[in-house]
């Protein structure tokens, strides 16, 4: 593993196309200039980053992982920021290592650029030092029914890795993608995953991110989605793991008639921090968005959701709704829920709802009047609380395991309380 410095930059850039080296150098300059984020900045409010990025090292080869069976239509493993194997290519789709895709596709530099990604130190580091990940392309008119699965893992203690997943769904093409983020417990590591999604005209994508990081992993993620005319995206994230897991999501509805359905379910316990900064921008008319996130925090956990809906002047006849509901399961836990609307058009339907509170006493009373003891009543209510979000997730093989993890997490905190 190597330090994040100019020497590493030179090594990485060797043999890469000139545009890429130029971009790395530019990002490196930003990386060196920017301080570590502070909770005084609006975008990092409530979050305390208590480490220095320079204390972590960049892996040059992936650590050892157990070979898991393939899933879905195709599977690619990205371990410590580096893809394993050469992926899958067929007429309907390609799922290949990003580094490989970049070498083969030297001229298409705009595809890999991500404007604004240098907005903080971690994102700048990603631009400067990220080398690999997964590239998914579904050509025009193709329909891939089984999910394409990317398994992102972090396995090296003291490492910082920069996995990137690029998803390009061609005009009228349709696909579903599952990205699983995982690492072992007790492994101190930092991951800066970035996901870029481009949807062509009338493209359809179901994208599920299943975040099950280990308990000492810090993840500072960024996802960018751009939707062309009449494109539809469903983005679903379940956040269960990590010491600190942050997701900065920017959705741009750039094409007339495009739509986004954003769903989420998160559950923090112990001292976890789950941090969501969601930005939904309606650039054109007849666009639709719906955000629906439900979360619970137990022990001393903290969750943050800030949701910004921006409707540009041109985006008339737009519908945009945002719901964020939070359950506080202990006195020490806290949840911040901050909805924001910025509406520049005048013919729009827009709304938001945000709640933070304990389990519902009337529901508990009703369930207990049916003979359930308090723990079982609360557990059933909690299941229902999350089911309300999970039932909106795209149908995928992951969903049952997500349910199990959510329930197991609650049972664990319940039994811990009794000790």
């Amino acid at each position, binding site marked *: 593993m190597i330090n994040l410095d100019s020497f590493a930059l030179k090594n990485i850039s060797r043999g890469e196309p000139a545009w890429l080296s130029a971009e790395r150098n530019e990002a490196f300059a930003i990386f060196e200039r920017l301080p570590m984020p502070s909770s005084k900045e609006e975008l990092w409010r409530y979050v305390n980053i208590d480490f220095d990025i320079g204390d972590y090292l960049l892996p040059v080869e992936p650590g050892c992982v157990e070979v898991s069976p393939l899933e879905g239509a195709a599977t690619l493993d990205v371990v410590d920021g580096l893809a394993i194997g050469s992926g899958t290519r067929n007429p309907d789709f390609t799922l290949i290592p990003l580094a490989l895709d970049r070498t083969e596709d030297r001229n298409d530099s705009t595809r890999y650029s991500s404007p604004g990604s240098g907005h903080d130190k971690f994102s700048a580091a990603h631009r400067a030092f990220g080398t690999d990940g997964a590239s998914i392309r579904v050509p025009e008119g193709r329909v891939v029914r089984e999910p394409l699965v990317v398994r992102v893992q972090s396995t090296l203690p003291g490492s910082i890795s920069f996995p990137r997943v690029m998803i390009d769904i061609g005009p009228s093409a349709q696909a579903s993608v599952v990205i699983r983020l995982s690492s072992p417990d007790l492994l101190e590591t930092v991951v800066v995953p970035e996901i870029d999604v481009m949807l062509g005209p009338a493209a359809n994508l179901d994208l599920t991110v299943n975040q099950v990081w280990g308990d000492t992993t810090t993840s500072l993620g960024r996802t960018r989605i751009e939707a062309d005319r009449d494109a539809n995206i469903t983005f679903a994230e379940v956040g269960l793991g990590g010491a600190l897991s942050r997701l900065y999501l920017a959705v741009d509805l750039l094409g007339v008639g495009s739509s986004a359905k954003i769903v989420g379910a998160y559950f923090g316990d112990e001292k976890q921090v789950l941090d969501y900064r969601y930005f939904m921008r309606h650039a054109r008319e007849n666009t639709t968005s719906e955000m629906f996130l439900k979360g619970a925090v137990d022990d001393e956990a903290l969750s943050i959701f800030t949701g910004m809906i921006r409707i540009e002047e041109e985006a008339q006849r737009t519908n945009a709704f945002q719901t964020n509901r939070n359950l506080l399961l202990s006195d020490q836990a806290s949840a911040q829920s901050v909805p924001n609307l910025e509406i520049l058009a005048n013919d729009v339907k827009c709304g938001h709802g945000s709640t933070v509170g304990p389990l519902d*006493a009337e529901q508990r009373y009703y369930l207990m009047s*049916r003979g*359930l003891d308090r723990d079982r*009543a609360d557990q059933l209510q909690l*299941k*229902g609380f999350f*089911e309300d979000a999970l039932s909106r997730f795209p149908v995928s093989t992951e969903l049952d395991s997500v349910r199990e993890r959510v329930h197991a997490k609650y049972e664990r905190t319940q039994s811990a309380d009794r000790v």
Partner: protein
Amino acid sequence: MNAALQLDRFTVSLGDLEILKGVDLTVPFGELHVLMGPNGSGKSTLCHALMGKNGYTSSGSVLVGGTDLAGLGVDQRARAGLFQAFQYPVEIPGVPLDALITEMRSNDEDAFDERVEQMSGRLGMDNFLSRSVNVGLSGGEKKRSEMFQLAVSAPRMAVLDEIDSGLDVDAVREVAELVESLRKPDLGILIITHYSRILRYMRPDRVHVLVDGRIVRSGGSEVAEQLDSDGYEQWRRDNVGRPSALPDDLSGEF
């Protein structure tokens, strides 16, 4: 023999406010009783206090099938054989009725499963089992769901709070007939209602009138008929000035 429900000098307060001022009431097994009263007479308080809801403090004694409920929590009261059908059953999003039914299953698993099978067919619940508890149901459907849960729990004492409220005439008749059909020798039923219209479709063994926290009259269905013609005002007037230490001569078994 023990009664399904036996209240002796049952007094209930909510905060500093005394709402039930010593209620004596016995519902023997196999009988269906009706408790009528105007708004604010303490009908719903009686239901919640029986069930042991937080916030209500009570004194006096409550026995269900001979079991003293004093000090028992809500779930323990349910397991002791007390069932409450709610006036406004709360919606529980994301929890399908069949998940709740599964959680309600107690030790007598086979008998329970049989009741679920039989009652869901009889009450036409098949379409509701996969839907979230009470979410998006009409008033009548909610009552039917409550009756279904009553029937599968096989309690010893069932208290039905305003089971006829918010229903049209046909739905009231349907609920009343349902209640009649649930009558069994090992079950006591107490219907709590404001209006006498539901009594047109059932044959109660006794009717009690609750006014200002006291039972002021008990009798046969003629009590309800009298209420129909004269209203509650007569009882209020009769009750004015009565020393609060001596309410018992007007309550319980007439």
